[in-house]
C-alpha cells in the first residue's frame, strides 16, 4: 500500500489531463492514465459479450453463407498485419515526443493514423465483398454476430484515428509540448487496446475453424 504523500491535493486535481506534468498521487500514476486503464478493462467485457455471441452461433447457421464461404484469409491477414504495425509506429511516436523530437513524432503519429485508415478501408472492402456474396446483417446468425462485432471494433478504430489526427493537428500548430506527452501516451494505450482486441477477433473469428 502506498504511503506516498499528497503535498498538495489541489495540484493533483489538475491532472485531469495532466497539464502541469506529473502529479503526486497515491500510486504514482496519474489519474488520467489509470482512468484509461479502468475504461479499457470495461471495454474488454463489452467486446467479450459480442465475441461470446459469435462463438455460440458459429455452428448454428440455418441458411446462407458460412464463414468458410466468404472469408478471404490472405487479404484479412494483410490488413491485420498493417494494424499490428500501427502499434509499432505508435510506440515510436510516443518515444519521439518524450525525447522532444517533434518532427519524427508527427511522422510516426501520422503513419499510425494512416495504417489505421488502411485497415478501415480493408474492412469496408471486406464488408462489401461479403454483402455481394449474400451475407447481410439479417441473412443468418453468422452475418448478425460477425457484422455487429467487427463493425463495433471498426467504430473503435475510427474513433482512434480521429483522436490521433487531432493530436497530430495540435502538434502541427505547436500546441503539443513535451510536458503534454501523457496525452499521447493515453491515446496510445487506447490504440494498442484496439489492436489487441483485433488480434483476438482475428484469431478467434477468422482463424480457428469450427
Amino acid at each position: 500500500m502506498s504511503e506516498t504523500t499528497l503535498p498538495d491535493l489541489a495540484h493533483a486535481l489538475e491532472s485531469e489531463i495532466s497539464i502541469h506534468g506529473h502529479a503526486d498521487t497515491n500510486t504514482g500514476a496519474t489519474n488520467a492514465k489509470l482512468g484509461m486503464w479502468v475504461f479499457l478493462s470495461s471495454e474488454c467485457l463489452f467486446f467479450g459479450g459480442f465475441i461470446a455471441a459469435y462463438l455460440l452461433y458459429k455452428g448454428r447457421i440455418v441458411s446462407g453463407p458460412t464463414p468458410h464461404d466468404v472469408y478471404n484469409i490472405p487479404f484479412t491477414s494483410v490488413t491485420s498485419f498493417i494494424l499490428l504495425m500501427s502499434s509499432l509506429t505508435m510506440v515510436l511516436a510516443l518515444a519521439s515526443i518524450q525525447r522532444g523530437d517533434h518532427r519524427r513524432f508527427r511522422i510516426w503519429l501520422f503513419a499510425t493514423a494512416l495504417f489505421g485508415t488502411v485497415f478501415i478501408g480493408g474492412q469496408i472492402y471486406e464488408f462489401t465483398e461479403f454483402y455481394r456474396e449474400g451475407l447481410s446483417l439479417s441473412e443468418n446468425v453468422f452475418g448478425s454476430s460477425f457484422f455487429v462485432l467487427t463493425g463495433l471494433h471498426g467504430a473503435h478504430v475510427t474513433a482512434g484515428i480521429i483522436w490521433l489526427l487531432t493530436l497530430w493537428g495540435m502538434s502541427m500548430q505547436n500546441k503539443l509540448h513535451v510536458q503534454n506527452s501523457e496525452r499521447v501516451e493515453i491515446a496510445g494505450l487506447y490504440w494498442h487496446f484496439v489492436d489487441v482486441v483485433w488480434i483476438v477477433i482475428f484469431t478467434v473469428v477468422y482463424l480457428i475453424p469450427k
Partner: protein
Amino acid sequence: MTTTIEKVIVAPEEPRQSVLRRPKETTGVWSWFTTVDHKKIAILYGATALIFFVIAGIEALLIRLQLAGPNGSVLTASQYNTLFTMHGTTMVFLVGMPLAVAFGNYLIPLQIGARDVAFPRLNMFGFWVFLFGGLFLYSGFFLGGAPNGGWFGYTPLTSAPMDAGFLPGRGPDFWTIGLIMLGVGSVTSGLNFVITIINMRAPGMTLMRMPVFVWMMLVVAFLTVFAIPCVTAALIMVFFDRNFSTNFFVAAQGGDPLLYQHLFWLFGHPEVYILILPGMGIVSEILPVFARKPLFGYSVIVFSGIAIGFLGWGVWAHHMFATGLGPVAVSAFSLATLLIAIPTGVKIFNWLGTVWGGSVRLKTPMLFALGFIAMFTLGGLSGVTHAIVPADTQQTDTYYVVAHFHYVLFGGLVFAIFGGFAYWWPKVFGKMLNEKMGKITFWFMLIGFNMTFFPMHFLGLQGQPRRTYTYASNMGWDKLNLLVTVGGFIIALSVAVFLVNVIVTTVKGEVAPEDPWDARTLEWSIPSPVPEYNFAKVPQVKARDDFWHRKYTEDDQGRLVLRPSDSADYKGAVEERVDGHDIHLPSPSYYPLVVTLGMPVLAYAAVFKEPLLVIPGVLLLLFGIYAWAIEPGTEEH
C-alpha cells in the same frame, strides 16, 4: 502545505481561448448547471433520485390498487405491464444506483481527506447523463409507448420487431436505448470513484484505514465498471434484432434467446451487489457511532465485501434455474450461490458484534441501521432457499421472489439510505432533522414494509404469479393481497413524513454543530455544511477512525477519556471555517452539459430511425468533447 502558493502579482493575463466564456459563479441557480463540486453534484444526484423514488412509489401504489382485490379494474393489462416495468427500471437505475452515487460522491472525498474526486467534470457529466437518461425513458409515455417488457426485458419478447406485435409500440426501443445511455453515466461515475479512492487519499490514509463505506464503494465501483458493459452488449443486440432484423435471438435462425438471459444476469447479479454494498457501507458507518464502539472485525468486513465482489460473478445462472440449464450447470451455480451467503452472513455477525455490549443510542440513524440488519437477514434467508434448485423451481415467477428481492433491496438498501439521510443530513445541509418525525418515519416504514412484503412469501408459495395484472376470487389470495396493499400505503405515509420533516427543518430546524453524533470519521472534523474546499488543511491521518482518536484517549486503566480541549492532539480536531478563496479548486464548466445534450438527440434518432437527428447530435457531442479537452481542469488565477 495548506494551499497552493501562487504569486499574487502577475502580468495581466491574456484571456484563454475558449468558445464559451468560462463560468465563474459558485453560488446561485446557474452555478448548479456548471458546478464540478462533488458535494453539489451529490445533492443533485440525491434530489433527482428522490423525485424518481416518489414516481416509482406512485407506480407501485397503482399496481397495489389494481391487486387489492380479485378481478381489479383500476388498470388495463397493458397499463399494468408498463407500470411494473417502469417501477422496476426506475427503482434500479434511477433510484438505487443514483442514490448510492449521491452518497459516494458526497462522502468518498471527505472520508479519504480529498478536496474533490479525480475527474470533477466527468462527475458532472455522469449526473447529466443520469438526468437526461431518466427523462428520456419517461418521455416514452408521451412518444409512442413507455417500456413495457419488464425491467429484465427478456428476449424474444423485447427483441421481436415492432410489426411482429409482441410488444406494441416503441416501449422496448426507449428501454434499450435509455438503459445504454444510463450505463454510460454509471461507468463514468464508477471509474471516477475507483481512481479517486486508489489515487487521492490524504497522507496516512492507507487502504486499511479507510472507512468501510469507502471500501464498499470501491467494490461497487469496480462491479459497475465491469457489469454494465455486459448488459450494454446485450441491449445492443436487442436493438439490432428489433430494428435491423439481425438474428441474435431468433430461434428459427439458430439464435438463442437464452444468450440474452446469460448476458443480462451476468450484469444483473453483480448489480444486486452494486445496490446492496453501499447500504452495507452506510450501516457500517452508523453502527459504531451509535454503539460507541469501533466496528467489530473491520478487516473481516472489508475482505468479505471483496469476496462478495468476486463471488458475485459466479452465481448469475441462479436466475435461470427454470430454463433447463442441465444438471451440471445447475449444481455448480446452486453451490456457488450457497457459498456467497457465507461472506454475507459473516458481515451480519460483525454488525451484531459491533452493537453487542455497546452503549447503544437509539437515534433515527441507528433505528434504520438495526432495521436494515433484521430485514436484510430475512431477505438473505429467503435468498438461500432460491439456491436450493427444487425449491427455486417451485418459487420461480411467483410472489415469493418479489418478497425476497424487496427484503434485500427495500429492507436492505432503502432502509440504509434513510438511515444515511438521517445520519449525514446535518453535515450536508447544516440543519438537524427532527428526531421525533424521524422515528415516526422509521416505525411506519418498518410496519408498512413488513405488512407489504411478508405476506408475499405466502402468496407466492400459494402460487400467485408475478407480472400478472389480475387474479380470480376463488384462489384464496384475497385477504393477503388487501393486507399487502394497505402496507404499501403505510410505506407511502412514512415517506411523506420524511419529506415533511425535510421541509419543516429546512425552514426552521435546529442548526447542526460540526459533530452532532460524536462520530469517528474525517467528514465530522470539518464545518457543517461542508465548505467548498472541504479541508482547509489536508489532514494527516494517523489511525483508522482518525477523528475519534483526535478526540479521545485511554486513561491508565484503559477507560475512554476525552482529551483535554487544550491538548496538542485535540487542537484542530474540529477545523475552523476559513476564507478559502486562495485554495485552488477545479473550475466550473459548461461542457459536461453540452456533451450530454448530444446524447438524447442521438437516442431519439435511434428510436425513431431519424437520420436527420444524427447530425446535430454528433455535432453537439464533438463540439462538447473538443471544447472539454481544450479547457483546463482548473483555471489559473
